[in-house]
């Protein structure tokens, strides 16, 4: 009869099946390349950064928005490796295109859409997510209802385009269909040997919610070659983790 060991096997097999039914296809052998996030990727189901879904990033302040666009630029450089362009939709854009060069992106391959209002941002995002030729779509939104996020989810399910929602109003946070909720905060950078000057950009990356994965918190730094994880040190900043 069933032994405890085989029961465990059955459960893990079932979990894998459920994941597959939910659309998390395990990576094909050879296609596994990763997105360069290192240990953060392990938090996602199957240990792979999910493409073709919507990620939500919280950036209530301008400083956090800057940090988030830094991390995002790092992610985009991996997503745009195949030559696909990226769409950046916003209402009130401050992003400075030349800064993306530092994250190995050719800024001329990003198309900026400056919509007139929130409704147009969401409409443009939905239309863009239906387009198969794109590497990623980024939209800065204030408010999104569950139904609206469901529409976006339906759009990506057929096109497999990765979407990023930058939310800048935390008071209007509600349940969405997004697969992951991130928060990125700047941390003091450090140069080797305690030299003076501002070092590489360093962030506190919190994965506050991951569907079928394990949330966590990491310290990452962007170097010219990619993301590097920095071991936890006492940074003197109180961690406030809210789970939405």
């Amino acid at each position: 009869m069933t032994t405890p060991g085989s029961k465990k096997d059955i459960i893990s097999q079932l979990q894998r099946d459920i994941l597959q039914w939910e659309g998390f296809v395990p990576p094909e052998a050879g296609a596994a390349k990763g997105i360069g996030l290192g240990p953060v990727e392990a938090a996602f189901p199957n240990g792979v950064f999910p493409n073709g879904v919507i990620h939500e990033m919280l950036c209530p302040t301008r400083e956090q928005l800057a940090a988030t666009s830094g991390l995002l630029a790092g992610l985009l450089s991996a997503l745009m490796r195949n030559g696909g362009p990226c769409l950046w939709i916003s209402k009130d854009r401050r992003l400075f295109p030349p800064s993306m060069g530092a994250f190995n992106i050719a800024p001329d391959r990003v198309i900026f859409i400056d919509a007139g209002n929130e409704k147009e941002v969401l409409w443009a995002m939905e239309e863009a997510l239906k387009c198969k030729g794109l590497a990623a779509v980024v939209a800065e939104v204030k408010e999104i209802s569950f139904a609206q996020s469901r529409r976006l989810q339906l759009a990506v399910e057929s096109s497999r385009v990765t979407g990023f929602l930058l939310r800048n109003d935390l008071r209007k946070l509600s349940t969405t269909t997004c697969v992951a909720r991130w928060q990125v905060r700047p941390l003091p950078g450090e140069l080797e040997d305690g030299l003076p000057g501002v070092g590489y950009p360093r962030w506190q990356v919190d994965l506050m919610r991951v569907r079928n994965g394990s949330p966590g918190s990491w310290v990452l730094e962007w170097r010219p070659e990619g993301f590097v994880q920095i071991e936890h040190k006492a940074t003197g900043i109180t961690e406030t983790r809210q789970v939405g």
Partner: protein
Amino acid sequence: MKKRYVSLWFRHLLTDWTALRRPELKGKPFVIAGPDHGRMIITAASIESEREGITVGMAVADARAVIAGLPVIDHIPGKAEKLLKALGEWCIRYTPAIAVDMPDGLLLDISGCAHLWGGEHDYLKEIVTRLRSKGYDVRGAMADTVGAAWAVARFGKVKPIISPGMQLEALISLPPTALRLEPGVIEKLHRLGFYTIKSFIGIKRSALRRRFGYHLLSRLDQALGGEDEPLQLLYPMEAFHERLPCLEPIRTATGIEIAIKTLLENMCKRLHSEGKGLRTAVLRCYRVDGGVVGADIGTNRPTCHTGHLFRLFELKIASVEPALGIELFTLDAPKVDDISPEQEALWVPEGAGLDDSDLLDLLDRLRNKIGAQNIHRYLPQESYWPERSVKPAASLAEKPATAWRTDRRRPSLLLRKPERIDVMNKLPDDPPKMFVYKGERHEIKKADDAERIEPEWWRRKRPHRDYYVVEDEQGRRYWVFRSGHYTDENSRWYLHGFFA
């Protein structure tokens, strides 16, 4: 195809219009007059006042002697042309080729149009009765040439429709004025006793030319069909033009959709056969009440794909107001380009690049909803000044002329306008120790050396800027600068960007 023309003559254009605007004047004698050499001269007189002997060119004082208390309305220069244009626009439902014939007429090129109204007789009757029912005293005539139609409309007494090839018979009994001649020539003809065209048409051409000039011969040829007379059309015909008249006025969105689809299908079929693709399209809907509504679209590359073009129009159908109904749809393609046949890809790469057709279709949709001016792509520009270091790309295909610079740190977010900050610093050329931005104190813990950026010498109006990358105690990184030298009285500190 044999050409046919209709000439319309509005005998009392200005007074008819005035009577329409001011019903109390209808059926009463009144005149329109304007100042000329210190006198008020009549420029238009209503039928009733003409019956009393008042003519155009008379002084108002003389007319008042005939009818005491004659209402005089101010003459508005250019009004007749405006009115004729509006009437011509209304007539577009009968033919697309319409020209204004100053000072009081319209010319319609009706080649191949009359059969749609059940023959030439019904066609002309329809136009004239519709215009008369509006309140305009109009006469119309139809002939093979502009000249003959013009003459018969104004001087014809027998019948308004001149059968093909019968211009000479129709004109022969008319006075020479019917040939649209200059007043001097007419006077000369009258002096010599030529009161009808018949009396001089038999004279040798060389003799006529010597006596009356070349113009008379040219007008004669134009009226008889020996010489072409081009019209200056109100709406120049586009090479690609589609029309869809409706039996019943269309009032629903579904109806408009079907009309647009039909027009696009016909247009695309023609474009496709000629190897062209559409870049811009203009839809015009002519309503029963005389209004014209429309929508226009543009595409990023030439296309003749009906489905895609229809999706672009679909976004705009909501803005087409049918009111009482639309009776005519027209579709023009003012801008077309050669289309290069797309090669079927055997193997579709994962990321498609900027020339992918899906992406271009998407951008067309965005462009038509959000506006072309709100879609940007940036290329590097050779300037150190941050605001001028990027320029918008002219097209999707444009490649950067120079490489993007990455040797200097540039902030992720750049404020459109630098914001003032209050700063405390120890030494003149040191980065600040502390700054206050929006009421919050930021203690600077780390900073990089200054980067001095000067405006180009041909723009030396502003002071240079000394930029510092600074990091505060919480690790937030900013781009601040001091404009001008430390010792300058006007030197100020600003915050310009946020680093990742």
